[in-house]
């Protein structure tokens, strides 16, 4: 019963991943913030999956989405792929410390991880693909993260019951 529950919420979260990925890689000229919001939502969902539904299949998920994000948004493989895999590896290393934290501390770490992830992607894109650091984009991501973070966590909690 417990396993089926876990499987269900995991499937739902993966479904959110697919939808948010699809919307974030198709630009809508009238609503550019939709792309940015779903891009942030993808990262939020992915971190949530790692924190609460860790399984080694996530390495394959990270690889597939990392490659696709890189190819579709940057045309070169690198920034997203390295970021997603690094996050997974860091999680394994820090798992034993994260378990000891309270729920509020976890939420705080969750938000910090999201911001660090988005910054790290920009940094890697700059380092590997010579992509110029876009302050507008980072500021936009930060604002969107602030707005959607709490509702998203609430939604994910509901999904997990």
């Amino acid at each position, binding site marked *: 019963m417990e396993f089926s529950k876990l499987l269900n919420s995991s499937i739902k979260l993966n479904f959110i991943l*697919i*939808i948010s*990925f*699809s*919307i*974030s*890689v*198709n*630009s*809508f*000229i*009238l*609503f*550019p913030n*939709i*792309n*940015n919001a779903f*891009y942030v939502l993808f990262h939020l969902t992915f971190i949530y999956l790692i924190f609460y539904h860790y399984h*080694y*299949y996530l*390495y*394959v998920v*990270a*690889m597939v989405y*990392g*490659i*696709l994000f*890189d*190819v*579709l*948004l*940057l*045309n*070169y*493989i*690198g920034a997203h*792929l*390295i970021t997603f*895999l690094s996050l997974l*590896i860091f999680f394994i290393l820090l798992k034993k410390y994260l378990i000891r934290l309270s729920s509020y501390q976890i939420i705080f770490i969750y938000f910090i991880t999201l911001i660090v992830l988005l910054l790290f992607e920009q940094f890697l*894109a700059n380092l*590997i*693909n*010579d*992509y*110029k650091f*876009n*302050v*507008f*984009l980072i500021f936009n991501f930060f604002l969107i993260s602030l707005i959607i973070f709490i509702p998203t966590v609430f939604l994910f909690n509901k999904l997990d019951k």
Partner: protein
Amino acid sequence: MAPKFQIKVFQLSRFIKNFTIISVVTISFLLVFFSKTDYYLVYGIKNISSSVVVPVTRFISAPVNAFSNFVDEYNQFRSLKFENKILQEEITRLKKWQTLAIQNSRENKVLKKLLNATDNNLILIKTASLINRNDTIYSKLINLNAGYEDKIKKNMSAINERGLVGKVIDTTAKNSRVILLTDPNLSISVKSISDGIFSLLTGNGDGKYLVSSFVKENKMPRLGDIVVTSGTAQIFPVDLLVGKVAKVEKNRFFVLPFVDFENIDYLQIVTSK
């Protein structure tokens, strides 16, 4: 018997787990390396992403797209009367320009014959339509529905009726990818029409203006000057319309492109003769 069996299963799953993690990390490292060297494996991945993944993502994001189109059409409908008035005025103005242009074109032909000059006309490779765009996050890229089967090659120029749009950076059999002028990573060598000042322009990050990254002899063009491709870098054909100088500062200037990047439907892929 039972505990032994359990241990074996545990060991096997642990082996699979470790194997998956190590292979994923190794493959990723190789892909990052091959991506820099344009290895055919990366080319295959790009091919799959543009021919399989893009249509799937378009299908999934269709409701958002439909909503966006609906809002766009509603806005257009609201401004119909106002736009009609502007268009009528523009038609009158363009008719006057047309008469002048025909006269100039005739004069141009006669002068070229007298000078025995060769044309630097463009060769039109293909007119292609836009499939989707990825120009909000990171690079400013668009995908077209024509590829190397239509003789499109890397580094060819993409133009529309208003001027230079960008450069082809990748081609697959049936699709090609164009980087827009407004991308901060694309540099174009340009010259101003009135003074012939040579400079390099790049995207400004805001997606609207182009900013000069290098100006030859630090001579600034005048406000309102028209800027065209210089053809010196051998990538873009010479004399393609780029934009108008919109702002001049001490060490740099800003150009407003002629192309409306928000309304691109069809593009022509061209190369110089």
